[in-house]
Structure formats: structure tokens, C-alpha cells
């Protein structure tokens, strides 16, 4: 993914820093608890939430199971509606396509509506290297861009900043990028939003090229959908002459009607509203209304590799609502930056190691960035079983095994630093395969229980430092079973 994150420390090291930052923890706690409570109310308003969730899950699963067909269909429909479709295998290719398209217009600046896909591929940096300036226009993205910072939340990327920090960033940095912040800017949200409005309006009005992502694309009609609140999306989608949309191949839904599910579940799950203020849909180009040229860049960048994993592919159902972040006890304390990716929180912990592979230290550590409490699965509007995938990925990290990387089947080596886990798993496998030895071991453990230490020696010391070791029972369960009624019945 983006070069920004190369060399990120593993999750435990990054989180260690974050949990000691009092301001950050305060900002995060306030944000996640506020939105969590609002979301529960918004979901309770619709009596058929369970059915909508199940329908969403099935629509996405069905699409993924026939993705080749739907990709061809969306290409055909977009082309028929006057758009041009490009295919990008990886980040480099997508960046090259977009850069060439912008250069062909003769422009040296673009306005962007918030897009996870373009962050994932590091598009802004790639454009910058070619002398093209990309202006982020979502308020939170603007805060992140001006602060030379990284996003830390899917929905509200600047959630780690409080109003005082935002005021300082605006006052200091806006003049570098265009219209300076008004004199005497205070830290009230209304004044800060007004400063952003004035700063960005001059860019919107002169922009000739817009860059977007999409929340959904409809295979049947070739329609793209962008869901937003501020109107910066509408500005980027309708004022420029050229519109370039970079969209992950998993964003397809088969039919127009399918939107009836997601336009109900997405706003309530993400911003906890009945409906977000603005939703824009467009199908190719329309004479006299909006951009005259429309390009769709279909992005793979690890998605087909993820699709090849029968357990992990469910991560591609994600509609980027961020509900899982707001309920996660680990995210709440560690913050988004510790995940080392544009996709933080529980979904990031399963998406990033699949899109990027588990070769790097940070990616190998992400499946462990969870308490496996299951709250993320409960709130997910497309029912992604995040704990299941986490456990699956942990196994892959520890044991290695066959995976698909860049379209090729390879056999992953076990990661370093998990020798104790592997040894324990091997020992468990052997013991369960040798019932006699297991029985002897269990009886021995029971009879020596008076002599067991309270803490573990060696590498287990850290684990038992904060936990009580489970006491060994006086009698193994299997002996008890033999001795009692159940055992007699079973013995015959």
C-alpha cells in the first residue's frame, strides 16, 4: 500500500506509544463512545435490521463469487454510458494511469473527494512526484493533509485531533496551500468549518480535474455512487471537466435495486444518521451536466489475492462504514496510526495483512491487534466474521502455508518469533493424537498440583505476570466421566 507506511513498527510497539498519549486517548474515547451510542439508536429505528444485514451479506458474497462476470458487466455498462474503463493490477499501475490522465488534460492540480482507495495506493505522493498537486477537500482529510499527518479513522480521519490542534494547523498551514486562515481564527467548530469553506471554494471553482473513489458501482447500469456530508464530494464530481474515479474491484453490486439495502445500512452504521446529507450517483457522462470526460480505474492491488483465500475473502464484503472501529477496545486505546495502514481497527487488522501479505513486521503483527471479543462482528452491517479471519490469519503467520501473492500460488514460511507457539501447537497435536500419553500426562498433572508454580518460568513469565494461571483440577475430566454415570453409559 502507500509508501507512507513503509518501515512502520509492529503493532505492539506503535500501540505502546499511543496508549501513553493522554490527549490522543481522550480524543478517541470521546469520539468512539459518542458515535457508538448514536449508532445504536439509529439501528434500533429500523425493525428489519437483521434482515437488511443478511441481505447485504448475501449480495456482497454473491457478487464476490461471480466477480469476473460482474467486472465485465460494469465495464460494458460504463463504456456504453460514455465513460472509459482502465484496469490496474497494483498501486504503481493505478498511479501511472491517473497521472497520465491528469497530464493529458494539461492541468497541474486536482481536487479530491475523500477516497480510501487512492490513499491506499499513495496517489497524492505519486502525483506530487510528477508535479501535480492534489487537494484533499473533505474537512478531516484537509486537516490531515495540512498537518502533514496520516488518517487514523475510516470515517473521521482526523479524529485524533481536537479543536485546539485543528485551529493551530489551519492558522499555520493554510497560507502554504492557498487562501490563508482568517485572522483571529478561534477553535469553535463552526469557525473552523467556515475557514475550510473559504479556503477550498477557490479551488473548487477553478478545478478542471476531479479525483474520487466510490462507495458502490452497479454492474447492471454502470452507475457509481458516492455518499458524503459536506458537499465537497458533489463539488469534485460535478464542477470539473474531467472526473477520474479509482475504485476497488470489490465495490460492485449487481443491480440498481441492491442499493436499497446499502443506502439503509451504510449511513446508520457509519455516521449513525438515517441518511447522510448528500448522495451522488452518476452513470457515465451526461450532456450539459457535470464532467464531459469520465474515467473509471478498476483497482486490484491485492484484492484478487484476498479473494483466493476462502476464509479471508469475506473481508472484501466491507463497505467501509467504520462501525467496527468505534466498538473495538483495542482501537479505542491504540488509535488508528498504530495499525500502519489506511485501514485501521478490526477491519484493518484483517484487510491489510491480506492486501499486502504478512511479510512485513507490522502486517504479521496485525492479526494479534485484537482481544477477539467479537464486538466488531456484532456491529458489522455485512456480517464479516472478523474474529474468524483474525484467528485464520494468526494460524497463517505462525504456521505458514499456501497463499496467493500477486496472482501466484506460493507457500508462506512460518514467521519468525513464533517458535514457542509453534512448539506448543506441535506438542498439542502430538498429545491429542496419542490418547494414552494424554491420559498419563493429565493424571500426573492432577497429582502434582500442590507443587505447581503460580507464575510461568521463561518466556511465559510476561503472560502470567498479568493473569492467574488456571488451576489444574483434582481429577481429569475423562477420569470423572469414566467414574460417573455418563461414563458407564458410554462404556457399554
Amino acid at each position: 500500500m502507500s509508501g507512507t507506511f513503509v518501515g512502520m513498527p509492529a503493532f505492539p510497539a506503535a500501540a505502546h506509544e499511543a496508549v501513553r498519549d493522554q490527549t490522543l486517548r481522550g480524543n478517541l474515547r470521546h469520539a468512539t463512545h459518542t458515535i457508538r451510542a448514536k449508532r445504536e439508536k439509529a439501528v434500533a429505528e429500523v425493525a428489519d435490521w437483521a434482515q437488511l444485514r443478511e441481505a447485504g451479506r448475501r449480495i456482497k458474497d454473491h457478487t464476490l463469487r461471480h466477480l469476473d462476470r460482474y467486472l465485465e458487466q460494469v465495464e460494458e455498462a460504463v463504456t456504453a454510458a460514455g465513460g472509459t474503463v482502465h484496469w490496474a493490477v497494483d498501486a504503481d499501475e493505478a498511479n501511472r494511469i491517473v497521472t497520465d490522465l491528469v497530464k493529458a488534460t494539461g492541468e497541474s492540480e486536482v481536487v479530491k473527494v475523500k477516497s480510501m482507495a487512492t490513499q491506499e495506493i499513495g496517489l497524492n505522493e505519486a502525483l506530487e512526484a510528477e508535479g501535480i498537486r492534489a487537494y484533499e477537500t473533505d474537512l478531516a482529510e484537509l486537516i490531515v493533509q495540512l498537518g502533514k499527518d496520516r488518517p487514523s479513522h475510516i470515517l473521521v480521519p482526523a479524529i485524533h485531533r481536537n479543536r485546539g490542534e485543528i485551529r493551530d494547523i489551519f492558522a499555520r498551514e493554510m497560507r502554504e496551500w492557498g487562501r490563508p486562515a482568517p485572522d483571529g481564527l478561534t477553535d469553535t467548530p463552526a469557525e473552523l468549518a467556515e475557514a475550510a469553506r473559504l479556503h477550498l471554494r477557490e479551488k473548487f471553482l477553478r478545478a478542471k480535474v476531479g479525483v474520487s473513489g466510490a462507495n458502490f458501482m452497479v454492474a447492471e447500469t454502470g452507475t457509481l455512487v458516492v455518499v458524503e456530508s459536506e458537499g465537497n464530494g458533489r463539488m469534485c464530481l460535478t464542477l470539473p471537466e474531467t472526473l477520474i474515479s479509482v475504485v476497488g474491484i470489490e465495490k460492485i453490486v449487481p443491480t440498481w435495486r441492491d442499493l436499497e439495502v446499502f443506502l439503509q445500512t451504510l449511513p446508520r452504521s457509519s455516521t449513525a444518521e438515517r441518511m447522510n446529507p448528500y448522495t451522488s450517483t452518476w452513470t457515465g457522462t451526461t450532456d450539459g451536466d457535470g464532467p464531459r470526460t469520465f474515467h473509471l480505474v478498476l483497482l486490484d492491488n491485492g484484492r484478487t489475492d484476498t479473494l483466493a483465500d476462502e476464509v479471508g475473502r469475506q473481508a472484501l464484503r466491507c463497505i467501509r462504514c467504520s462501525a467496527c472501529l468505534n466498538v473495538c477496545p483495542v482501537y479505542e486505546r491504540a488509535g488508528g496510526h498504530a495499525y500502519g495502514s489506511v485501514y485501521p481497527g478490526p477491519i484493518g487488522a484483517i484487510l491489510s495483512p491480506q492486501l499486502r501479505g504478512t511479510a512485513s513486521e507490522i502486517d504479521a503483527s496485525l492479526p494479534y491487534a485484537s482481544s477477539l471479543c467479537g464486538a466488531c462482528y456484532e456491529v458489522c452491517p455485512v456480517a464479516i466474521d472478523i474474529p474468524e479471519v483474525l484467528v485464520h490469519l494468526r494460524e497463517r503467520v505462525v504456521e505458514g502455508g499456501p497463499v496467493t501473492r500477486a496472482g501466484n500460488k506460493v507457500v508462506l514460511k512460518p514467521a519468525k518469533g513464533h517458535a514457542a507457539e509453534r512448539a506448543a501447537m506441535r506438542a498439542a497435536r502430538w498429545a491429542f493424537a496419542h490418547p494414552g500419553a494424554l491420559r498419563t500426562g493429565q493424571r500426573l498433572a492432577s497429582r502434582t498440583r500442590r507443587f505447581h508454580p503460580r507464575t510461568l518460568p521463561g518466556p511465559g513469565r510476561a503472560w502470567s505476570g498479568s493473569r492467574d494461571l488456571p488451576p489444574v483440577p483434582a481429577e481429569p475430566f475423562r477420569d470423572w466421566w469414566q467414574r460417573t454415570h455418563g461414563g458407564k453409559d458410554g462404556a457399554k
Partner: protein
Amino acid sequence: MSSRERILGRVRRALADVPRDDTPYEEAVARDYLREHGQRSVEETVELLAENLADYRAIVHRCTPDALPSLIAGLLADRGARSLLVPAGLDERWPAATEVPRVQDRADSTAHELDRVDSVLTACAVAIAETGTIVLDGGPDQGRRRITLVPDHHICVVRVPDQVVSSVPQALERLDPARPLTWISGPSATSDIELDRVEGVHGPRTLEVVLVDSRASAEVSSSRPEGSR
């Protein structure tokens, strides 16, 4: 090999476990969710629309067709609007009572010209009660997408009850995906700063929705959300 072939090839190899006769689309999804939430009379649906619009800080007015021109003239006068943009196909009677100079939306008018316009008056394609949403589809009485975006004040007229549906599924049924659509639920807003909601960032900061009811008696009413200008 082109990137297209490469990606499609990867997708097909990745799906090797999916049987060729996998469940077809028509059977893959149980549509057992509700078409609308709750049983409501037409009046109740319109009332819910008004409530939900106001809840998201739109200013809602209700009137008869006869009272509409003077209501619109009053709204523009209240704001001190000095220019009014109307789409080419708008009912001429609606802005007939106002003296505010008219600006026509032309294909070659620039975004900067639109930025100098004070107010815009449009119709809509459909309104959704359960979510408090109005949908514009670029029809002749609604104009191009940019005209309801750049000016700071948008007055949108909804014909009641013909244009009102209960729910999102009912709205999608009525809309044509080939047209560019804009769904609007309240004025522009952001919650990016400490999750405090602030109305008005880039889109119009004031949204006034007029529910014109041809069946009602000639009564004009307005409901403004608390704290609105």
C-alpha cells in the same frame, strides 16, 4: 497480457472453489426486509417527511398551490436575496410574485457566476419520508447538479402527496439510474471536528423545503429547526 486479462484471470483462479452452477442472483438474496417501516396514512407519511427534514435542519414550509408564489417571494425577501436562479423548465407561476432579479442557468455559465447567485429555486423528483431526503434527477424543473450546490440558499418544492414515498426501496423504484441523481438530506454538514455537527461546509448552508399540497385548505405554515437563521 493486458492488465484487464491479468485481473480477470486472477479472479477466475481465485474462485476455483466456486461451483459453476452456483446459486443464481435471483435466488442468492432473500428480500425479506421491509418495503417500508410501519403502516402510515398519506397524511402521516407527509408529516414524517416534514419531521425528518426538520430534524436534519432543513426549514420546512407547507402551503397550497395558490399560496406558493407569495410564500416564495416572502422567503426570498426574508433573506434579502438579490438574485434568484431558476432552471429552464420550472413552473413559471412559482417565482411569479417575487421582484428578485432572475438568473437563467446557461450551459456556459461558469462556477464563478453561480457563486455570485444568492438563491436557487427548484422542484424535485421524489422525497423520502423515513429518511427526510429529497432527490433531484436533473429534470427540466431541477436543472443541472451544480445549480443546487454552489449558491448558499436552496428552496426546493415538493408536490404532496404525489412525489412523497415512505422509504428508500420505494424511492429507488421510481428513479432512473441513467440520470445523474443528487440525494439531499438536510443542508451540508460536517462532524469532523470532535464529532460536533456543523451545518454548512461546501454545499448550501440553508435548505428550505416547501411541501405544496393541492388537497389541503389554504393554510401556510412553517417550521424552523431550533437555532436556525
